[in-house]
């Protein structure tokens, strides 16, 4: 196969990647800028870590970040359970009543505009509260339920596509050797699709951690998440602390993605060796 790319494609690829990365790099650079004007480089006093200290002393941002972490962890765990069940069902059972509905219900949240999802969930919570008295007011619980509803759709897609290339002979062998279906699932299937489940967990965490619109609709007083606080700050203009927050986010995400992909590459290599 011919791997030589034409100059046209190479130029497009480089420009496209530059377009994706210049804004990110500019935030990292200006997070070390001393000037409060953010985008005007103050050469005399920079680089400095003063906005890093300012961020770590900002109670409002820290409180919001803590709420976001709690919601994101519960959401990711719940979404992985629901999404794995749905993905497994869709991949393994070709014919069951409601299959079409389930597959539609797990595809629609991927493209549904967030204002619609947010509004509809809020109206559901209000109606439920009138009807059965639960949930009493809105807060972290309602927000987590809302996040799980769209995050699980992403997990379903990931798990479903992993199972599409799954060699079912392994499961059949285990069953021939006398393992019960539940045991087969936990001993054979789950370890093999574990990377997909891990990706799903991380993605669900990120989706929840980043969400602004659906959180704004479904949160209550005292449960402002990090994106909600950032949004209200950004609406008033740029702020040096947000650059710091962005830099830290990018550092964590990059580290995590690189670690996970190295781990997965190693795992595939080991599996390759084991099969030989």
């Amino acid at each position, binding site marked *: 196969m*011919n*791997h030589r*790319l*034409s100059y046209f*494609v190479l130029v*497009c*690829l480089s420009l*496209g*990647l530059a*377009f*994706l*990365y210049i*804004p*990110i790099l*500019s935030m990292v650079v200006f997070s070390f800028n001393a000037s409060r*004007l*953010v*985008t005007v480089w103050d050469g005399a006093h920079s680089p400095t870590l003063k906005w890093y200290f300012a961020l770590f002393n900002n109670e409002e941002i820290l409180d919001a970040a803590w709420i976001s972490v709690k919601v994101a962890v519960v959401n990711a765990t719940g979404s992985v359970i629901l999404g794995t*069940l*749905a993905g*497994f069902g869709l991949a393994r*059972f070709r014919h069951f009543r409601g299959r079409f509905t*389930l597959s*539609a*219900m*797990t*595809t*629609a949240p*991927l*493209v*549904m*505009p*967030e*204002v*619609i999802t947010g509004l*509809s*969930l809020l*109206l*559901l919570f*209000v109606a439920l509260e*009138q009807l059965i008295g639960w949930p009493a007011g809105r807060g972290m619980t309602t927000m987590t339920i809302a996040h799980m*509803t769209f995050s699980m759709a992403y997990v379903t897609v990931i798990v479903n596509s992993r199972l*599409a290339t799954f060699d079912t002979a392994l499961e059949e062998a285990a069953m021939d050797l006398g393992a019960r279906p539940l045991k087969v699932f936990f001993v054979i299937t789950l370890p093999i699709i574990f990377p997909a489940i891990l990706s799903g967990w991380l993605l669900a965490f990120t989706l929840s951690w*980043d969400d*602004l*619109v659906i959180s*704004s*609709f479904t949160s209550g007083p005292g449960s402002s998440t990090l*994106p909600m606080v*950032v*949004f209200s700050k*950004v609406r008033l203009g*740029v702020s040096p602390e947000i*650059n710091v927050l*962005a830099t830290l*986010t990018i550092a964590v*995400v990059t580290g995590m*993605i*690189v670690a996970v*992909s190295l781990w997965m590459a190693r795992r595939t290599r080991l599996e390759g060796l084991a099969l030989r």
Partner: protein
Amino acid sequence: MVALPYVWLMLFFVVPFVIVLKISFSDVDLAIPPYKPLLDWVGKNSLAIKLNFNNYAFLFTDSLYLRAFANSVKVALISTLLCLIIGYPMAYGIARSRPATRSVLLLLVILPFWTSLLLRVYAWIGLLKANGVINNVLLSLGLIHEPLTMLYTPFAMYIGIVYSYLPFLILPLYANLEKMDWQLLEAAEDLGSRPWQAFYKITLPLSRNGILAGSMLVFIPVVGEFVIPVLLGGPNVLMIGRVLWDEFFSNRAWPVASAVAILLLILLVPFMMWYQSVQARESAGTR
């Protein structure tokens, strides 16, 4: 086993739409929650159902709403087209590079997608504003003499949308192109067709499903986009997602917001069904 996710999605994804539909037919009320019930016990044994079509009539009489709908569709179409023009060559380049380079390039495209959308949109404020990075660079190079007005214009909004949604277009397109049999292109070239001809006649038609899936992942959410128009487009950009938000949060007009949501849904559901059928065809491996 599938019962749990099934019931969950029914309760938290399908039922809410029924409630939105119901409230879109209610009267506005100065109460908590700010709407009147549809069903009312009148006298002893009679139940009155009162459907109020005023919210919908209102949306069609005040030109603001129809203009917002039209503008949102226009913005979404232009954004999708821009994403295709920028994203197609990128997806193509990634799919045709060496396997080792390929996974690095793919990682580079996915990485921004994992960092917060809000923060990446925020980055563009710093680049585009009057004393922002782009103006500072152009001024110091002497290319312009006074700062350009870029922030809070439709231009800034398009940049923000294309920037945020580009990975959504590249990934499905790449997944499609990766499965392409490139020998077909070599055969075409051996038979004397020019590279552009071969691309137009072979690669483009064969990647149809990838193009459709990627475009839909951009078009549908952008029609209802809220964050980017507000932060980059400024107060004059009229988008339906923003109208819905303002009706709900600023005017507390829940029934009107619900009617907007229902109309938006009616507009988008055909595209969602199209997307699902494209996905089904793609995973079945037929083209």
